[in-house]
């Protein structure tokens, strides 16, 4: 017998612990109550007369303890999942190949879980039913084949190796996997050709083709999981802004095809408001493969775009995703001619367009001094000229907790002489960005009812200042400008379940909320089984062991029966 659930040491330890506890409890239960007597004379005579029954009773007490220990042992064994096989049966070499390719991400229509979970369960069941003398190796194909369990490793290790596996984003290379399995079988010294158990969602004919291609002589037993599918569906949709012009970007769409032959997948993206088609591509895709399509540049204006896989000849597909683009309107900055040159240069490096101070509507204002009466609807970037004077030479540092300087390196930057920035209003609206010598030299002030203002000390632009030469300074200015312009740059999160218009999707919550995908995030659609033809799965060693109860269930039933018997004997003891 081998233990496939827990190690042999754990079995022995559990038996020792539970056995000890049961023995102590049994002794406590059977400990007699002391009674002080005038005389024990007559009880001595009575006990002598019933001596034989007393011995039987003592035997029954010991038998009760043995029953409890046997019940505990059975419970431990049922947890350890023992496997018993006749010692006369010859050893078999088995290689378990587990398909963890792209197609295994498909979810079952009624369960909502990836079919890979079903494949893993089938693999575990196969391992559990192997005989004590059988030798097992496991190959995971995710998407390239790799050995995760060797013939010489304990069986329990295989279970632990299976648990962290996840399906890959590429189709599984079945031919290479079968070749690897064959090489594992060829390396052993045995007349038995061995067996390859292939847990996959591929059809039988496809399996046979791969076996022929791999040239393996071993007996191949496919274990098919999941329903046969042959439609196309979206896998991922994301919006990636252009590096040079972040207010624009492109849609990246990935679609998968679960058919058995090469086909063409058509991906279409349409702006909901205007109806403009921003993407319409047909791309050839291999069986169980995935393809990508990229749209033309589109503005990041916060509009909703619908991305859909449309049906083409021989490729069913009506899968769709609604995507809300980030909102990043163009930024215009009206710059005061008296602005320091370094500031003007930093503004030019932002996504904004710097224009003369002709006061265009909606533009930011960059002024050389803090305006006495700021406009209520126009953010301001101002150089502060007034305040307590600082000396030059102080090290400039980013303020702790300020997002605009998060991750920026101001190492070696010093500030010139000039006025420090002092808070004048609500402390909660005043956020320091840069400090020098303990004084604030850059801050973002957002008082209630007034436009936000970026305050920059004139000391930053003095001759002795080196901070404006740092790339971090330009990045800080760019971040603040984007924030002042109201750009939507916070990361968007995708719910665990993606909203689709596919009627097979059953999650009502996902139906009502707009979904935005994060670039690179994998989304798996719920593929409908359209193909009515399914091959009969060739069952191998997997599946139930037959009979009414499994071995583990039988052990548990026996253990419970022994506990009931113990309780009965304990209750009946007074009737003997």
């Amino acid at each position: 017998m081998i233990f496939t659930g827990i190690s042999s040491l754990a079995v022995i330890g559990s038996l020792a612990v539970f056995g000890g506890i049961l023995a102590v409890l049994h002794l406590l239960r059977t400990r007699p109550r002391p009674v002080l007597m005038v005389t024990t004379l007559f009880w001595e005579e009575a006990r002598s007369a019933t001596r034989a029954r007393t011995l039987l009773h003592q035997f029954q007490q010991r038998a009760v303890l043995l029953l409890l220990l046997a019940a505990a042992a059975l419970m431990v064994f049922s947890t350890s999942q023992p496997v018993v096989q006749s010692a006369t049966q010859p050893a078999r070499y088995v290689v378990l190949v587990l398909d963890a390719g792209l197609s295994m991400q498909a979810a079952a229509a009624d369960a909502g879980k990836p079919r890979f979970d079903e494949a893993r369960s089938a693999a575990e069941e196969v391992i559990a039913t192997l005989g004590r003398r059988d030798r097992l190796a496991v190959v995971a194909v995710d998407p390239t084949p790799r050995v995760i369990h060797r013939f010489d490793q304990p069986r329990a290790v295989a279970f632990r190796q299976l648990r962290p596996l996840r399906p890959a984003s590429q189709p599984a290379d079945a031919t290479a996997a079968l070749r690897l399995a064959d090489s594992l079988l060829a390396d052993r010294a045995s007349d038995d050709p061995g067996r390859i158990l292939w847990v996959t969602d591929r059809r039988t004919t496809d399996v046979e083709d791969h076996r022929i291609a791999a040239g393996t002589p071993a007996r191949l037993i496919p274990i098919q999981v999941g329903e046969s599918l042959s439609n196309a569906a979206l896998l991922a949709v994301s919006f990636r802004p252009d590096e040079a012009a972040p207010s624009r970007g492109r849609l990246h769409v990935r679609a998968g095809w679960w058919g058995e032959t090469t086909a063409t997948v058509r991906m279409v993206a349409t702006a909901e408001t205007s109806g403009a088609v921003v993407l319409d591509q047909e791309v050839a895709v291999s069986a169980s493969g995935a393809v990508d399509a990229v749209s033309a540049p589109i503005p990041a204006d916060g509009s909703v775009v619908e991305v859909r896989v449309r049906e083409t000849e021989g490729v069913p597909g009506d899968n769709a995703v609604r995507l809300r683009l980030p909102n990043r309107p163009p930024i215009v900055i009206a710059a005061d001619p008296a602005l320091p040159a370094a500031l003007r240069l930093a503004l030019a490096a932002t996504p904004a367009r710097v224009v003369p101070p002709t006061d265009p509507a909606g533009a930011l204002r960059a002024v050389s001094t803090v305006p006495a009466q700021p406009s209520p609807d126009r953010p301001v970037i101002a150089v502060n000229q007034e305040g307590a004077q600082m000396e030059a030479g102080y090290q400039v540092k980013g303020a702790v907790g300020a997002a605009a300087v998060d991750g920026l390196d101001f190492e070696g930057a010093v500030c010139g002489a000039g006025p420090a920035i002092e808070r004048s209003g609500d402390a909660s609206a005043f956020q320091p960005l840069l400090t020098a010598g303990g004084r604030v030299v850059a801050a973002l002030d957002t008082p209630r009812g007034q436009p936000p203002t970026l305050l920059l000390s004139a000391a930053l632009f003095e001759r002795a200042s080196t901070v404006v030469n740092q790339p971090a300074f330009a990045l800080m200015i760019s971040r603040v400008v984007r924030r002042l312009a109201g750009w939507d740059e916070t990361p968007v999160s995708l719910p665990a379940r993606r909203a689709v218009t596919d009627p097979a999707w059953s999650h009502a919550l996902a139906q009502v909320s707009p979904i935005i995908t994060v670039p690179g995030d994998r989304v798996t659609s719920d593929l409908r089984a359209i193909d009515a033809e399914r091959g009969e799965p060739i069952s191998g060693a997997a599946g139930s062991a037959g009979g009414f109860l499994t071995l583990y269930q039988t052990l548990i039933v026996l253990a419970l029966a022994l506990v009931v018997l113990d309780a009965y004997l304990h209750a009946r003891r007074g009737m003997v």
Partner: protein
Amino acid sequence: MTAALFPEPFVRGIQRLRIVARHRITGDHRGEHASQRAGAGMDFRDYRAYSPGDDLRRVDWNVYRRTRRLMLRLYDEPQRLGVYVLLDVSASMDLESPPRVHAAKQVAAAMAAAAAHQHDPVLVVPFSNELHPPLQLRMAASLPRLLAELEALGTGGPTDLGAVVRGFARARRRPDLLILVSDFFDPGGIDPVLHHLASVRHRLILAQLTRRSDRAPALEGDLRLIDCEDGSALRVSISPRMRRHYDAAYAGFCAKLQRFAVRRGAPLVRIDTDVPVLPQLDSVFHGGVLRL
């Protein structure tokens, strides 16, 4: 304190009790019991031939006139009966609630009072595994003092009834009256006790102290029975079958005691310590008199 153990109604009750010997008793002192020896009493008993040296005043001259033979008139001479009350004060007598020793003391007091009213000397001898210093009652008027001493008498020590009886028999050669007040639960069993009692020349009265828990113990399950005197433990699992054997053992014990009492002609009074003692003494004191 005396009133708690010997209330006034009880004292009045025992003062009317008498112990009367029906058969001739050989005693050394003048008392109120019939003696086996002819003496200078008031009751004519018999004639016997005159022997030189006899008192001439006892010659029946009317018989001489008729028969020309000198005959002496014999009269019954009242004798004093020495009464010994052996009172069990071993540790087991004080275990239960109420302790058996209370009833034992009441029985001893009753027997002592009955003997004292016949002007018989009474010695109440407490014992456990040996005889303890006795309590003496010389006259009925001294009864209150005896009751006080009985009240104050403590308990303790293991039981060795056989050794006590054997020792008493060796020390008391004159056959007087021995009243044994005990539960008769000797660790060696009843047989050795009865064997030693059989060798006692005294007249016997046996007062067996019992209670319901002896006859029908309210015990069940797995128990460790501990003897209160020697601390020995006995592990039992009380089942109906074992209970039947217990009943048989206890019944056999009582039967042996009964048979012995019948053979010896000794009154056996069973005192249930759970109920008042005085009414139970009526089973032997018929009309207040215990006739031996």
